[in-house]
């Protein structure tokens, strides 16, 4: 194929197909280059200026989020954020979305999502130690969705299991809006000895650019612009964008990178993974951060396929590749080091002073553009926003469920896919490899110990897009607080946040309003509990034939447990333990699972979230756990008190006997800021003195698995075995 000339690109407006607008193209020609960009150069701008790489639509909004605290060692801008956890150690974490690749090719899309986020962590010099994921699909009705779910779950497990990192938590939910645009978000957490921290920079004239890892093929070319493009029925055309992962190579690459940074920090000046927009994005960002120039010689790039053009090599998203900036005197050491891991490592270029990005291919200079024009000159957009009519119109609507039979409603709710146990899926993930997992999936947060210390790390992924859809601001706050409650209930102190912001087309003013308002909500909640947002990812254009998904921010939160003894789980421990509900319950049914169950849809506004009360309750739970007064703790979320009680009883097949002033309907209310706790009888006085207000004593844990419940309206005995069965088997049944 002969490439079109610069003139032909201009005349045919080929750049538009690649995602550059007329005004952007004009900016490049007239203000930046003062000439027409050639084929390769146009390709570079089109990926680097895509939303996925440049955040041109979302930057303004993202700045609203707090990113500072005493613990922050690195925030947004690096491959991942870093938080100090004392003793010279730090945690490094980030989440990333792989929604579009997973829609096209579910197994590989999900697998390479996991692979990509792991590289973001070890490229900081950290040893990855845990994985999480957040998945959203359409309802489990038709074979196609089930296939999609199976393949995505298999891809997540296939990669994580093979590389040997435990998947310690996550979530899966089902709503109509994700039927054709599933969300696949993955998070990785790593541990860093602070001295090992490596920036992704390429500085110092004459220093070498070294390519390490898998060979380059034509995988995922234009994956980055593709991720920023709305989805249409023409999926088939985009099939060349499929990337295939090789977790075996990634394992070697991970071990090699962690070891070289730990043992030979002086050999390496900078390191970065090749993620979206592969070679161009990694090298341009490294050079741009150091305000250097760069020369690359593509003939040296290890290639899996023949006759690849410069454009293809620069944009390829072949997996399991890293870029290093290496001091010339250590070149041989570095190459030898990687060879010992049976990895390809070659010098592909060097750092220059002229701040130009120059690429040679077959001895021809195919690109010569200012480095910073790729990363810094991207126009930022201030998109118009309007509040969607559905929100204004429904603000005053209040749903009240009708409970004919508390028992039936209770049993039926446990079967609802969003509430039923997800074990059918997460048991295909190795959650224990490394033998450090203290709390596996199935409680609130996942917890991993840090070997050699008393410390442990609690981690969770949370989102509730139903609430964000009804009220983005309050929904954003709720998402953060739900995550925080999971951390707190597990015995941790929330210390930081990463996010995946999954939304529709930002050029739609309603979508942009949702993005903006929910980020404001997230920001206010994070400030309240001092959890800076230290990394994250934006995935826009999640639409299918012009229907946007629910605004779906996913919060990945990390908590510190200073002493493993404080690790707490949701399950009731002993017969006779006292059951308490912390927090008041109101008629909060809009957006709830009971509303969905009874009406098949969600509707209405949300009550503002009292951040002070939320914070107070979290603090009280932490104090109670710190003082050793808590036997079990579970946060209340979907399905309210009824579901929290059931889940806590299931693990050890216990029962409970409770009496409450709440109505039967309120057993399913989803009022925020609540926790379910059990306390040993001997700790009763101390516990009650500590929590003082806002608590209700409910009753006791019992031996037989019967749920005896007396509400304001009625007294019932619910068969706990049947409840367990409903909850445990529902998903497997649906997946048949």
């Amino acid at each position: 194929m002969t490439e079109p000339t610069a003139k032909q690109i201009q005349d045919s407006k080929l750049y538009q197909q690649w995602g550059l607008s007329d005004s952007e193209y004009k900016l490049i020609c007239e203000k930046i280059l003062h000439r027409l960009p050639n084929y390769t150069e146009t390709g570079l701008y089109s990926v680097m200026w895509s939303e996925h790489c440049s955040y041109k639509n979302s930057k303004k909004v993202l700045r609203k989020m707090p990113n500072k605290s005493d613990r922050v060692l690195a925030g947004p801008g690096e491959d991942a954020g870093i938080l100090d956890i004392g003793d010279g150690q730090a945690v490094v974490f980030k989440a990333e979305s792989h929604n579009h690749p997973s829609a096209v090719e579910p197994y590989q899309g999900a697998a390479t999502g996991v692979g990509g986020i792991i590289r973001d962590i070890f490229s900081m010099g950290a040893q990855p130690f845990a994985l999480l994921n957040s998945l959203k699909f359409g309802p489990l009705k038709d074979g196609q969705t089930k296939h999609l779910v199976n393949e995505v779950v298999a891809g997540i497990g296939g990669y994580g299991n093979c590389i040997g990192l435990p998947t310690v938590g996550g979530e899966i939910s089902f709503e109509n809006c994700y039927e054709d645009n599933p969300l696949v978000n993955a998070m990785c957490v790593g541990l860093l000895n602070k001295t090992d921290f490596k920036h992704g920079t390429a500085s110092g004239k004459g220093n070498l650019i070294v390519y390490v890892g898998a060979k380059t093929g034509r995988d995922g070319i234009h994956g980055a612009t593709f991720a920023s493009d709305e989805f249409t029925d023409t999926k088939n055309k985009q099939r060349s964008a499929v990337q295939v992962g090789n977790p075996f190579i990634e394992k070697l690459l991970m071990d090699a990178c962690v070891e070289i940074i730990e043992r030979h920090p002086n050999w390496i000046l900078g390191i970065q993974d090749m993620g979206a927009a592969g070679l161009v994005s990694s090298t341009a960002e490294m050079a741009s951060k150091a305000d250097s120039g760069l020369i690359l010689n593509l003939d040296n790039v290890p290639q899996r396929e023949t006759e690849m053009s410069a454009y293809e090599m620069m944009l390829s998203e072949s997996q399991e590749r890293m870029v290093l900036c290496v001091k010339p005197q250590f070149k041989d050491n570095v190459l030898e080091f990687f060879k010992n891991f049976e990895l390809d490592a070659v010098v592909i270029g060097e750092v220059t002073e002229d701040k130009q990005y120059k690429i040679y291919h077959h001895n021809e200079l195919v690109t010569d553009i200012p480095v910073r024009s790729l990363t810094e000159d991207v126009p930022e957009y201030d998109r118009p926003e309007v509040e969607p009519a559905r929100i204004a119109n429904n603000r005053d609507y209040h749903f009240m469920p009708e409970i004919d039979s508390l028992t039936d409603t209770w049993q039926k709710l446990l079967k609802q896919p969003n509430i039923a146990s997800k074990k059918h899926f997460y048991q295909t993930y190795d959650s224990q490899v490394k033998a450090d997992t203290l709390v596996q999936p199935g409680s609130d947060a996942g917890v991993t110990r840090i070997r050699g210390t008393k410390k442990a790390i609690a981690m969770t992924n949370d989102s509730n897009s139903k609430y964000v859809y009804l009220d983005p601001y309050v929904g954003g706050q709720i998402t953060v607080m739900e995550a925080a409650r999971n951390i707190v209930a597990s015995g941790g102190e929330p210390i930081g946040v990463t996010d995946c912001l999954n939304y529709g087309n930002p050029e739609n003013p309603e979508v942009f309003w949702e993005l903006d308002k929910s980020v404001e909500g997230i920001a206010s909640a994070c400030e309240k509990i001092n959890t800076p947002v230290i990394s994250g990812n934006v995935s826009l254009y999640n639409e299918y034939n012009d229907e946007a998904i629910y605004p779906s921010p996913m919060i990945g939160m990390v908590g510190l447990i200073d002493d493993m003894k404080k690790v707490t789980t949701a399950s009731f421990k002993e017969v006779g333990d006292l059951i308490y509900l912390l927090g008041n319950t109101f008629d909060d049914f809009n957006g709830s699972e009971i509303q969905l169950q009874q009406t098949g849809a969600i509707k209405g506004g949300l009550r503002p979230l009292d951040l002070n009360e939320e914070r107070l309750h979290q603090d009280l739970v932490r104090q109670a756990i710190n003082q050793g007064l808590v036997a079990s703790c579970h946060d209340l979320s979907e399905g309210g008190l009824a579901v929290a009680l059931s889940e806590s009883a299931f693990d050890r097949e216990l029962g409970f006997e409770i009496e409450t002033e709440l109505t039967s309907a309120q057993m399913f209310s989803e009022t925020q800021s609540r926790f379910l706790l059990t306390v040993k009888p001997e700790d009763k006085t101390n516990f009650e003195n500590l929590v003082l207000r806002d608590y209700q004593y409910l009753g006791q844990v019992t031996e037989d698995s019967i749920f005896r419940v007396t509400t304001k309206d009625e007294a019932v005995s619910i068969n706990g075995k049947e409840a367990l069965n409903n909850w445990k088997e529902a998903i497997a049944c649906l997946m048949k």
Partner: protein
Amino acid sequence: MKFAVVNFPGSNCDMDLYYAIKDGIKEEAELVDYRQTSLEGFDGVLIPGGFSYGDYLRSGAIAVHAPIISEIVRFANEGRFVLGICNGFQILTELHLLPGALIQNEKSRFICETVTLQVMNDQTMFTNQYTKNEKIRIPVAHGEGRYYCDEQTLTELKANDQIVFRYNENVNGSVDQIAGVMNRQGNVLGMMPHPERALEDIVGSSDGLKLFQSIINQVRVNN
């Protein structure tokens, strides 16, 4: 005592086993690279779990061509002890140091769960600290862990008391619920469950500890 933990490309439970020896039973352990050709100076060999060579082709199939393998075979044939866990078990069957094969789980899915095992033989160098028929809780994590052997082999396994562990509930569809078998001489054991992940109550179970203590006990008796 000094244990070799043999590390293949893609092994990922190597450190877990290393810590099991170092911290669990406070003995010496050393990682041995698959390119090494000598196991001189070691008292026993541990082959860890993971995905050697990505588990491509068949799990364990490519690892048996690594340089260290002939030394492992020599070790086994000399009657010294060899323990393969999960991928290590798969490697030992591919090597024919143990009978049978490990194939895809009956439900064709990976499964990670803490399961109940029954100790079928407490007279081995790997189980002398357990009692016969003792029920222990040990995690499994595998996609290709269904033990298969033909009927004649099964008859022999039973006759020689080579079945060391059985699953209480057949999680993967194994022949005769077999979770772990040893060779005729009793010095090579392979098992799919991970005792090295069950050494402390804080991670969910400490029932794996006795397996490592059994080895120590036996070697002390021998010396």
